[in-house]
């Protein structure tokens, strides 16, 4: 009884979320600046995560939640990579330096300079 009712609720929420995703796709295509598109992709990813959670509870399986965790993490990395590429025109340069300078670090620094020369 309650299960059938909940199934309907899940389907309704999934449909609402799909409408939201369609709206975001419009922004993704129309967005005047690159950053609008990056924002739309990031927000789309969040919705995909929620959608996967809904879907896996609907099926009663855990696989979807695993993929959702992964998607949440990869979404972050993808956003950082896109932004870094378009800001520095490359993925290599450091955005920030590593803290600390222990003896171990100095040894490694010496080794790196030896390799470079």
């Amino acid at each position: 009884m309650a299960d059938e009712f909940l199934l309907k609720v899940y389907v309704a929420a999934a449909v609402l979320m799909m409408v939201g995703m369609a709206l975001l796709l419009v922004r993704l295509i129309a967005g005047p600046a690159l950053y609008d598109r990056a924002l739309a992709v990031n927000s789309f990813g969040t919705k995909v995560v929620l959608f996967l959670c809904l879907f896996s509870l609907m099926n009663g399986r855990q696989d979807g939640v695993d993929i959702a965790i992964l998607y949440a993490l990869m979404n972050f990395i993808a956003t950082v990579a896109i932004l870094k590429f378009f800001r520095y025109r490359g993925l290599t340069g450091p955005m920030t330096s590593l803290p600390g300078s222990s003896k171990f670090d100095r040894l490694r620094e010496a080794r790196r300079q030896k390799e470079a020369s």
Partner: protein
Amino acid sequence: MNSHLILRTVSKFLIPLIVVYGLYVHFHGDFGPGGGFQAGVIVAAAVVLYALIFGIDACKVAVPPSWIRIGMTVGVMLFAGTGVVTWLLGGAFFDYDVLKYDPDHPAGQHLGIICVELGVLFTVATVMVAIFYAFGSRTPDISDEDW
């Protein structure tokens, strides 16, 4: 103070979590979605995140290219070596049952799959990092006006 402070702190926090998650995906290929290929990509993604934040030079110190070369080779050798071992033991190529025969329980299958998947994990993770190093080390040859 660097304006990338927030990115740095959050990324540092996330790197071990991503690595452990990748290896979880690897070792649970039996029970859920996962396996060597996906796990390799996830572990490589953690390294790529580190390289994005701290620069590729720091990343090459942490994960040296020599390790990458060794990892690629070891992975392929683990994969092919499992097949050769089964072959030498008298079975067909990748006939895992020869490794440890047990009529009730597919122990040989488990052992063989673990070895093969470990090889896939090594190869995929290291090749992904190698591709990132190779592409990332290129200087952009398109001028800014062409974008």
